[in-house]
C-alpha cells in the first residue's frame, strides 16, 4: 500500500557524495511524522525533495496524493498543495505581514483581495499575531516571524505541511510559541512532516518518529519506541548525545 505522501527509492547525490541513499517512506493522511538525526544525515534534504526544492536522482519517485512530483508545469500545482516552513522563515521583507499571507492565495488560487484579506486575518489570529498584521517582517521577533510563515503556508490550505527545522534559528525563549502553534495544527488533523531537534515535541506530538543517519532511515516507529527504547545503536548514541548535553 502507498501513503498520501509516498517516497520510493529516493536517492540524491552531490557529485560523489550521496546525501540520500535510497529512502522508502509512506506518510498517511493526517499523520504527524517527526524526522530526527544528526546534522548531515539527509533529513532536510529529504523533506526538500518532497516539493522538489531539491531535485533528486532519476529512478527515485515521490508522489503526493497520487501525483508524481516531477519537473514541468504540474510542479507548481503540487507545490501549492504542499506547505513549507523554513528554518530561516524566508518571509517577503517588502510586504506587510498581512500581504505576505495574502500573496499566494491571490496569485495562485485567484482569490479576490477581500477573500485573501479575510483568510489572512483569520490565519494570523489563529497563530496569535493578528495585531501585527500591518507591520513588516523586519519589525517582528523571530518567533513571530516564524508564526507568520506558518500562517503564510496555511493560506494555501495545503494537504501536507513540511517543517524544515522550524525552531533552529530561534532564540530559546521563542521556541515554545512556535511549537505551540505546530501542536495546535497537529490536533486539527493536518498531515505534517517535521524535521526537528525538539525531542520533547516529537515525543508529545508525533505519530511516528524517523531516525536518519548517513542518508538512510535507520529506525522508525512510535515515539515511545524510537525515543524511549531505541533498538539501533546509532539511534542510542544520537539520543544519548542530544538528551545529555
Amino acid at each position, binding site marked *: 500500500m502507498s501513503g498520501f505522501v509516498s517516497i520510493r527509492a529516493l536517492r540524491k547525490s552531490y557529485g560523489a557524495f550521496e546525501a540520500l541513499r535510497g529512502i522508502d517512506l509512506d506518510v498517511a493522511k493526517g499523520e504527524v511524522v517527526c524526522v530526527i538525526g544528526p546534522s548531515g544525515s539527509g533529513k532536510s534534504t529529504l523533506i526538500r525533495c518532497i516539493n522538489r526544492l531539491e531535485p533528486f536522482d532519476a529512478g527515485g519517485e515521490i508522489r503526493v496524493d497520487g501525483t508524481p512530483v516531477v519537473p514541468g508545469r504540474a510542479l*507548481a500545482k503540487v507545490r501549492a*498543495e*504542499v*506547505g513549507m516552513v523554513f528554518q530561516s522563515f524566508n*518571509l517577503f521583507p*517588502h510586504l506587510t505581514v498581512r500581504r505576505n499571507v495574502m500573496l499566494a492565495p491571490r496569485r495562485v488560487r485567484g482569490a479576490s483581495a477581500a477573500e485573501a484579506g479575510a483568510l489572512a486575518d483569520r490565519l494570523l489570529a489563529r497563530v496569535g499575531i493578528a495585531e501585527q498584521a500591518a507591520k513588516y517582517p523586519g519589525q517582528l521577533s523571530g518567533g513571530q516571524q516564524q508564526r507568520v510563515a506558518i500562517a503564510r*503556508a496555511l493560506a494555501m490550505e495545503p494537504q501536507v505541511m513540511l517543517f524544515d527545522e522550524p525552531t533552529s534559528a530561534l532564540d530559546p525563549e521563542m521556541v515554545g510559541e512556535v511549537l505551540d502553534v505546530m501542536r495546535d495544527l497537529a490536533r486539527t488533523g493536518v498531515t505534517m512532516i517535521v524535521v526537528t531537534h525538539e525531542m520533547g515535541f516529537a515525543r508529545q506530538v508525533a505519530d511516528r518518529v524517523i531516525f536518519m543517519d548517513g542518508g538512510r532511515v535507520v529506525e522508525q516507529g512510535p515515539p515511545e519506541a524510537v525515543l524511549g527504547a531505541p533498538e539501533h545503536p546509532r539511534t542510542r548514541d544520537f539520543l544519548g548525545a542530544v538528551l545529555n548535553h
Partner: protein
Amino acid sequence: MDVFDTFLNLDVMARAWPLLLQGLWVTLQLGAASIVAGLVLGLALAMGRLYGPAPVRALARVYIDVFRSIPLLVLLIVIYYALPFVGLSLSPFASAMSALTMVSGAYSAEIFRAGIEAIPKGQFEASAALGLTHRQTMSDVILPQAIKIVIPPLTNNSINVVKDTALASVVAMPDLLKQATQAQALAANPTPLIGAALIYVAVLWPLVALVSRMERRMGGGAGAR
C-alpha cells in the same frame, strides 16, 4: 578684447539662448527615450542571461560583453553612415537612440543581474514552495526587492546616457551641443558653448547629488531593515 566678451558675451548668449533651449529639449527627449528603452532591453537581457535556455544565456552574455566593449561613438557612426549601404537609413534621432539604447541595455542588464543575484535564495524557495510560477516570483517577490538595490546604479547609468547624447551631434542631430556649435559658428564667439556646458551641469548635477545621497543612505542603513 577681454575674457568676458569672449567667453561670456551676454549679447551672443541672448541670441543663442532660444537655440540652446531647443537643443536641450531634443537632448532630453533623446535621453529619456534611450533610458526607458535601455531599461526594458536591460531587464529582458538580464532575464535571458539568468533564466533562459542555454543558447539564450550564451547569446545574452555575448551581447552584453560586445556592447560594453564597443565605443558608443563608433557604434553610432556605424549605424548612421554604414547601415545605409545595406539599405537601412535611420534618421539622426533613430540612429542615436538605437546606439544609446543598445549600449545602455548592456550596462542595465549587468546591473539588474547583480540586483537579482543579491536577493537571498530563500526568497526564491519560499515563492516556489507556495506554488508561484517563475514569472509571479519575479514580478511579486524578487524584482520589487531588487529594484531598491539597483536604483542608485541605474540612475548613474541614466546620467551617463544623458551625457552621451552629446555624441549625437556628430550625426547632425540638433541636440544641445550641436545647437551650441552652430550658434558659435554663426556668432564667431564661443559663448554658446559655455552656455551649453553650464546647461548640462545644471540638468545633471541634481541627479548626481541624488545618487550620492541614495548611496550614502543605503550604505548606512542596509543592515537596518
